[in-house]
């Protein structure tokens, strides 16, 4: 993006008590989760960021407060600008407001973040898992999720692993 978004950043910092950081020429604005719903509305209506390019989350475990960061990237097609927004979230019962009503594509993106990180989005119309099976336990991209590696089977430990490997049968119940 060629245009500078410093005006937008300044406004966000002023109106919503954000905190701007710059890294490698990219400015990120940190906004508290309580003010994020209003801020997102302003980002869409006032600053004309008509596209939410992507959203994801980061887990900073074992830090407790904030443990997660929601990472949003907004794009303004008209003004040729892009904007990074980070929303820190505490570890216990992590929740965030949904952006579904503002950006419709947030529906699936938030479901993915919920599936992988277990962050609940308040007001979301369909808060289900999207990638993992519906009966899956836990949220795999959390840092404290067990890796669940299986021990590789080589010739020296073939028999040992072969005994406990759950081989499928030809028919059910056989």
């Amino acid at each position, binding site marked *: 993006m060629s245009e500078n978004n410093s005006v937008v950043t300044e406004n966000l910092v002023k109106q919503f008590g954000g905190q701007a950081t710059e890294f490698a020429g990219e400015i990120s604005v940190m906004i508290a989760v309580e003010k994020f719903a209003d801020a997102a509305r302003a980002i869409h209506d006032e600053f004309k960021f008509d596209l939410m390019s992507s959203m994801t989350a980061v887990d900073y475990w074992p830090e407790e407060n904030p443990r997660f960061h929601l990472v949003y990237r907004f794009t303004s097609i008209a003004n040729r600008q892009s904007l990074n927004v980070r929303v820190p979230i505490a570890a216990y019962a992590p929740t965030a407001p949904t952006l579904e009503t503002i950006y419709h594509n947030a529906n699936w993106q938030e479901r993915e973040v919920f599936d992988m990180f277990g962050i609940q989005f308040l007001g979301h119309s369909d808060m289900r898992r999207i*990638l*993992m*099976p519906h009966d899956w336990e836990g949220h795999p991209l959390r840092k404290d999720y067990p890796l669940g*590696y299986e021990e590789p089977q080589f010739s020296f430990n073939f028999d040992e692993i072969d005994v406990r490997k759950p081989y*499928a*049968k030809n028919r059910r119940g056989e």
Partner: protein
Amino acid sequence: MGLEQKLGNMGVVTARLEDLVNWSRTNAMWPMLFGLACCAIEMMSAQAANYDMSRFGMELMRPSPRQSDLMIVAGRVSRKMAPVLRRLYDQMPDPKWVIAMGDCASCGGVFNNYAVVQGVDEVVPVDVYVAGCPPRPEALIHGVITLHEKVRREKMKDWA
């Protein structure tokens, strides 16, 4: 063609039923048409003009499990895909065989993590494992030939 001479005047040839059935099974073994990942590209290549698996009576890839004898699991099976794969297998009529094509289908390959089944033999019973990442079409054809040899050795008493 030689057959007439073997038949002789009687027009009769004797063979063991096992051999006859196994021979007919190997020469019209229809694989199921589905691929899960990059191994499927090699599987398509094995079917196409350069390698031409129809030489072994396998020219028909059936896009329906109800018409196929052989399931070639070409690619990694995710935990979410596993019930679907088992369902496809259950829909295939007996007798049926499974080839685990490639490292991922055989043992999980490089994907030693929560999302991928560590070997498709946890979901369906596998007859032949083909190594490679992905295996070349020659390797798949070798796997198929190996399966054919296995089928030719099947005994009547083991048929369900």
